[in-house]
């Protein structure tokens, strides 16, 4: 294949890439326009003068930094919780025999198949009854437990050679020490994949935060951004500026950790 010309392929891919990127480019051009400028027909491609008005409006109406803190805080809580809980359970399912192990794992698998909406009414009831509505933990708690994460970690541990464990055990290490010092370091790629996937879902999630933040206090970015849209329905430069500012943090993380993102998606592909 090496001798074949690749420029026709590049041409097709470039056309496709341009179509993919046009919405972002249009957004970037719009944030520097004024509201009347945006409503012009036919639309002006470039802004007449680079106005920063949209950003000023956005930052003066939306408590961006507190929303950012809520998004980040709940993400950290959810990721750390889920990775810890799933790694422990995944290791037990893979390596530590106990009575009823297969039946319990079957229950995890069954919950993995159920769409998330089936849990929302009950999870909401628990959060409300514990007085946690409109709090940061409410955003993170259900996502700290994941049948999917447990499944992923179990697969990782099952694919590891037994020799290291046996050697450590003969040296007198207890199961937790074996897990912590021997097995967990070998599971790093899977831990990274799970971290990235969980972080992505946590950051992007809209439905659960909508449900557990009824008062609008402690809102993460998606809920706050949706509120901004309700408030500034046709002030497109401000809306585009808000969408841009709120999206940039994760895009930057992605650009730094591309490999982990791709690995995470490839190892699971599960959405939501």
């Amino acid at each position, binding site marked *: 294949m090496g001798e074949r010309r690749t420029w026709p392929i590049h041409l097709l891919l470039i056309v496709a890439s341009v179509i993919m990127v046009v919405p972002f480019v249009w957004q970037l051009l719009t944030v520097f326009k004024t509201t009347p400028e945006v409503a012009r027909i036919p639309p002006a491609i470039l802004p007449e003068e680079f106005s920063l008005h949209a950003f000023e409006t956005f930052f003066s109406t939306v408590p961006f930094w507190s929303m950012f803190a809520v998004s980040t805080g709940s993400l950290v809580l959810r990721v750390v919780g889920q990775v810890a809980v799933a790694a422990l359970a995944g290791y037990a399912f893979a390596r530590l025999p106990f009575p009823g192990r297969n039946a319990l794992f079957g229950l995890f698998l069954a919950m993995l198949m159920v769409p998330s909406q*089936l849990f929302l009414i009950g999870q909401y009831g628990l959060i409300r009854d514990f007085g946690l509505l409109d709090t940061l933990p409410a955003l993170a708690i259900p996502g700290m437990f994941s049948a999917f994460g447990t499944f992923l970690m179990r697969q990782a541990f099952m694919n590891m050679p037994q020799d290291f464990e046996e050697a450590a055990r003969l040296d007198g290490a207890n199961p937790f020490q074996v897990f912590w010092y021997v097995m967990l370091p070998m599971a790093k790629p899977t831990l990274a994949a799970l971290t990235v996937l969980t972080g992505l879902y946590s950051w992007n999630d809209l439905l659960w935060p909508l449900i557990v933040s009824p008062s609008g206090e402690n809102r993460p970015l998606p809920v706050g951004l949706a509120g901004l849209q309700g408030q500034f329905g046709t002030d*497109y430069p401000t809306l585009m500026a808000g969408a841009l500012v709120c999206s940039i943090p994760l895009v930057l993380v992605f650009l730094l950790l591309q490999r982990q993102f791709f690995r995470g998606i490839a190892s699971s592909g599960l959405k939501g």
Partner: protein
Amino acid sequence: MWWALLFIAPATVGLVALYLWPFLSTFVKSFQDVPAFGPATYTGLDNYVELVGDGEVWKAFGNSALYTVLVLLGIPLAVVLAALIEQVSRGRSVYRVLFFLPVVTLPVAVGMVWRFIYNGDFGLLNYVLSWFGIDGQFWVADPRFTIYAFAAVGIWMGLGINLIILGAGLQAIPKAVYEASSLDGAGRVRQFVHITVPLLSPSIFFVTILTVIAALQMFDLIFIMLRSVNNTALADSKTIVYLFYEKAFVQFQQGYGAAIAIVLLIVIMIATALQFRLQRSWVFYG
């Protein structure tokens, strides 16, 4: 053994309290009338009977089904693009990053940008269509077009994920197969049809399953593009998960909402089982 129980305890407590119990309570509530305040009462199959006679529910399932079928059109597109990306050596990672950008953009932000592009008066889409002499439409304000408009965004958003999964599948195809067929004089198109697609079919099947499940749960786009701005097209454009949200968490008819969720579960199970049955005729396990 005690160690095992310590390891497994946190996950099991969480699973039972936050998944198994809520699931069972949704099931039970679907047979109850659950007022916003006060005790629930058992009403047998009333919620399901009401649901079957509720035009709004049928409309929502119809919308979700249409959306799902339309989003599936993105899969052949993803297969072709994944194969093209696999063919080039330079720039491969650049293409991957560009196609993946919508995945790492907040879905709420994606909805906002596309709502602007779809604007009937001065949106970019109508402007581009005018170059070809095509009349503009109110894509998200006219219920005749909303589901199609959502599906285009859904394909655009899901492409990056599908490309990664399909790309991993492509790399598992032995290069020798292509080399042998090149010696036999097969061109790229023939190789794609006779080698790539059959050998990739398990990955295509996997992507199809995931796409259908995700599409049947579409919520974010409709919330952002219609509900958050009180667009009147919402009434005719509700998807099944949106209707569930509205019943269970806006109107707080949790019994009725629970029944909708149970029906959604059944629909997803049937759709998935159907695909596993159909795969026998097209998925190739070498």
